């Protein structure tokens, strides 16, 4: 088994900021927008180095999405950024009509997604955003797992022609994927091969899946772990190849079990290769205040929950 090493805890939003810094230096068409959350989105360096390519819109997310759509008319590549809740649910119709239906090359960059923003509580903890965004025709949905991958994804989406939803988070988490990796949209990453069970994880849950796999291996369960950083387009081929080998699957995500990665995987399996599946996800509820660690424990989104789900799904094989 490949051993993944935590290179030191970092927040994925800082990966976004680092990616923006690089894009600012390398791609003159990239412009940045923010709705009064510069510090939280870690884009200070981009703004400092490219003040003419940054647009502060104030607390007005609907306007931000429309302006971003307009900026593409003239060849700009706008990165519109705010918290995930305000970047999706609050402005769904603006994204739907002015960006998705209009086919605009806007990158919607959403921090503080999921439960792990912590103490601010459920008003800010969106657990429905993947579902909202993946349902829009033509929208690409990406949820990278750590700092290095978020930086790589940020850089990669600038070269993709079309609307993208890039989702990342607030807390400092394990940073374990390679520095300066190449990010390929829609290409699932095999992290660990196994033959008894497949774990398909996205975002913060990928590291938790690796932790779970280590324990499972110690119990003699050969565990395959795949990082599904792109939820749409989903890498059907990689998923089917793995599940055909292992015969069962656990999906893991920091999102409602309705509308998330798990349902996308279930659609692929039901269509091509029905197999037992367990869902590690929030069970159709809102979140609440607490530390990220406490919340992941309470809502069943950690390595222990994944282990339990693996044991359940193995019994259903």
């Amino acid at each position, binding site marked *: 088994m490949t051993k993944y090493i935590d290179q030191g805890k970092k927040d994925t939003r800082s990966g976004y900021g680092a990616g923006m810094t690089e894009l600012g230096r390398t791609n003159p068409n990239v412009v940045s927008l923010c709705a009064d959350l510069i510090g939280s989105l870690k884009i200070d360096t981009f703004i400092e180095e490219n003040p003419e390519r940054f647009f502060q819109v104030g607390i007005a997310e*609907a306007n931000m999405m*429309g*302006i971003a*759509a307009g900026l*593409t*008319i003239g060849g700009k590549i706008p990165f519109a950024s705010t918290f995930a809740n305000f970047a999706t649910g609050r402005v769904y119709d603006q994204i739907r009509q002015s960006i998705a239906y209009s086919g605009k090359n806007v990158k919607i960059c959403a921090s503080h997604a999921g439960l792990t923003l912590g103490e601010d509580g459920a008003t800010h903890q969106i657990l429905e955003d993947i579902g909202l965004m993946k349902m829009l025709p033509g929208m690409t949905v990406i949820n990278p797992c750590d700092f290095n991958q978020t930086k790589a994804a940020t850089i990669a989406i600038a070269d993709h022609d079309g609307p993208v939803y890039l989702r990342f988070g607030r807390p400092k988490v394990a940073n374990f994927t390679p520095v300066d990796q190449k990010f390929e949209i829609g290409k699932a990453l095999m992290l660990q091969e196994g033959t008894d069970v497949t774990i398909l994880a996205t975002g913060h849950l990928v590291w938790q899946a690796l932790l779970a796999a280590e324990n499972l291996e110690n119990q003699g369960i050969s565990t395959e772990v795949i990082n599904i950083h792109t939820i749409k387009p989903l890498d059907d081929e990689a998923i089917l190849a793995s599940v055909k080998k292992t015969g069962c699957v656990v999906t893991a995500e920091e999102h409602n079990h309705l509308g998330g990665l798990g349902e996308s995987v279930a659609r692929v399996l039901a269509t091509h290769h029905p197999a037992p599946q367990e869902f590690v996800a929030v069970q159709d509820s809102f979140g609440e205040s607490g530390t990220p660690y406490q919340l992941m424990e309470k809502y069943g989104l950690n390595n222990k929950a994944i282990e339990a789900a693996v044991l359940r799904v193995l019994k259903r094989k």
Partner: protein
Amino acid sequence: MPNIQELQDLVTQVRRDILRMVHKVNSGHPGGSLGCTEFFVALYNEIMDLKSGFDMDGHGEDLFFLSNGHISPVFYSVLARRGYFPIDELNTFRLIDSRLQGHPTTHEGLPGIRVASGSLGQGMSVAIGAALAKKLNNDDHIVYSLHGDGELQEGQNWEAIMFAAGKKVDNLIATIDRNGQQIDGGTEDVMPLGDVAEKFKVFGWDVLEIENGNDLEQVIAGLNEAKSRTGKGKPVCVVMTTEMGNGVDFMMHTHAWHGKAPSDEQLEIALSQNPETLGDY
């Protein structure tokens, strides 16, 4: 530049197009379309600096965004007659497999359309974005937009109005079609807008008014005046008073024809009030 009689003939012909389009499919929005016919004809044939042909980015030319997308009939007719696509294609309005969707969209690749609109209140933000892109590209052309007055009830407009003034988007001319009507009745009964010009002024815009937006010469003069006020640190707003259903007597002075097509008999009467000038499609 066409002379005023040629433009007036075009206005009459566009009215016929609008009436025939909505009649054929028994749906669509004739009222606001007829009220804005002079505006569209003036804009596309006298006011805007346009390249021949169409590309999405529109570098080196003026741009126009229609925010109240339901008045697509007038938009389509004027675009077709300006040469963006074959006039015959007006025959396909709202039909299956058509590029002329009920509300304008880029999705079917219709030349002349740069964003989808129909869900109200979004066009000003998009126009601002396009105006900002022009500034970044050192392109000194102007971005025009049109908005229904009832549409100003959508809050996103006020985010955009605040932004455009606050960030000095002075290459933008936003026209408000002040026809005083919306689906459920008069705007002042449904949700009072009050003094629209004054509202824009206190938000920091340069505002001018066109008292009769159905007088072609007034529209041209007003838009030329608006053009002369761009580049001076403020976005420009034109509050243009129009009569919904203008040019068809029984469609005027009421909100009833906002989204209703005429019957066969009504079409005949309406067309007789607007005799063919440039040839029907």
